[in-house]
């Protein structure tokens, strides 16, 4: 437990520039590696922090529960999927959505945290859009919920801008050489949602049935929307 706390504080201290964890000259006994110890059990650390925050009156545990509950049960890719399906069946809505995402999304009641300035970009047979945040992990929370680990990871963030076609191939999407790829790097407080192509053969489907086809990945731009019988989606 003592080691735990020390390792934990070492990392805290390092972040404020007091210590560095790299290439520090180390003695022959090599014990200097201690400070690189894994941040031990986060479960215990978070429990201890929460009890401190509650005891100091800095947070209301019920409010914490509500935040977790919101993203675990209420806000997720189904939000974005409803918008996409509506745009597919309602050309007037689609025009509003592409021209002024903010207002069109408000028609669904979507907005708020990081969503108030969402831009919707449309895929066509000639144009493919891909969304990334190279600097951190910005993502349209109100429309897609919290991002998956791969979206937040170094491999995706690093390569999406320099090798979008290679990234797409890794996701199983192969683009023709003459398609235009547009990568949207979310460097400010704008968020991006891809309006995928409506799959051929879906002409007779209802808005609800269409919404069920639309995946999170398609709205990030790393997948296309397929009809169910055409094979399993990622």
């Amino acid at each position, binding site marked *: 437990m003592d080691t735990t706390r020390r390792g934990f504080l070492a990392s805290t201290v390092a972040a404020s520039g007091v210590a560095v964890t*790299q290439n520090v000259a180390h003695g022959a006994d090599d014990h200097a590696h201690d400070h690189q110890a894994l941040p031990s059990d986060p*479960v215990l650390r978070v429990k201890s922090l929460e009890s*401190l925050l509650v005891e*100091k*009156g*800095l947070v209301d545990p019920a409010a914490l529960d*509500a935040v977790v509950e919101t993203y675990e049960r209420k806000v997720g890719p189904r939000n974005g999927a409803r918008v996409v399906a509506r745009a597919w069946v309602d050309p007037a809505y689609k025009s509003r959505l592409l021209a002024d995402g903010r207002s069109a999304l408000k028609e669904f009641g979507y907005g708020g945290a990081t969503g108030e300035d969402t831009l919707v970009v449309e895929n066509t047979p000639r144009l493919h859009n891909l969304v990334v945040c190279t*600097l951190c992990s910005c993502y349209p929370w109100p429309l897609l919920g919290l991002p998956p680990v791969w979206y937040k990871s170094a*491999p995706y963030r690093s390569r999406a*801008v320099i090798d979008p076609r290679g990234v797409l191939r890794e996701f199983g999407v192969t683009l023709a050489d003459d398609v235009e790829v547009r990568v949207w790097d979310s460097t400010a407080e704008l968020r991006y949602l891809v309006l995928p192509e409506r799959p051929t053969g879906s002409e007779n489907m209802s808005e609800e049935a269409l919404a069920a086809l639309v995946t999170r990945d398609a709205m990030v731009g790393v997948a296309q929307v397929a009809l169910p019988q055409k094979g399993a989606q990622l």
Partner: protein
Amino acid sequence: MNGVHDMGGQQGMGPIQYEKNEPVFHAPWEGRVYAFNRTLGAWRKWNLDASRHGVELLPPADYFRMSYYERWLTRLINISISTGLLTREEVESGKPAPGTAKATPPITIANVEAAAIIRASARRPDAVVARFAVGQKVRARNMNPVGHTRLPRYARAKSGVIDRDHGVFLFPDTTAHFLGEKPQHVYSVRFSARELWGEEAKPQDGIYLDLFDDYLEPA
């Protein structure tokens, strides 16, 4: 800051690790860390940009070793200590400093929806004049601030075209360091893939960045 967080264009990070049916949180503690971050901001000891910068300040070895929510946990503790919301001793012991009066949380179950889940916008109503117009050719400045910035290294000194004017937003470079909001226009700037990455890129491909007025100069 030219840090390891500025990942655009890096190679050698390994394959993308896709998890099927990924849960929102992989463990309850991740949810708590997320919720701390979403609610403690209401104490107004810091802002979103300062908080982002907190992750950038992690030593590279820690940045790469930690999972996403471990980074969030560490930056939260760091910024709580540096802004005086908590003391190092409190974090270490898990107990409030002796004699601390109990505060009243600004965010409770009663107002959490409006106060935390719907976050304040970074858009500003200020009537700031735009220095650039849609269609204009611009160059991202070759700037290398040691503090927070949202101009990635890969776009610096590169030329692009203003695609859209998003309007006026607070400026992260100053906001993150509590030096004022300096509201200014943000533009979507299109850079051709070849301008950024050379002749091996496809000529029709483009990368769009949302860049602040202060990041740009006429090309």
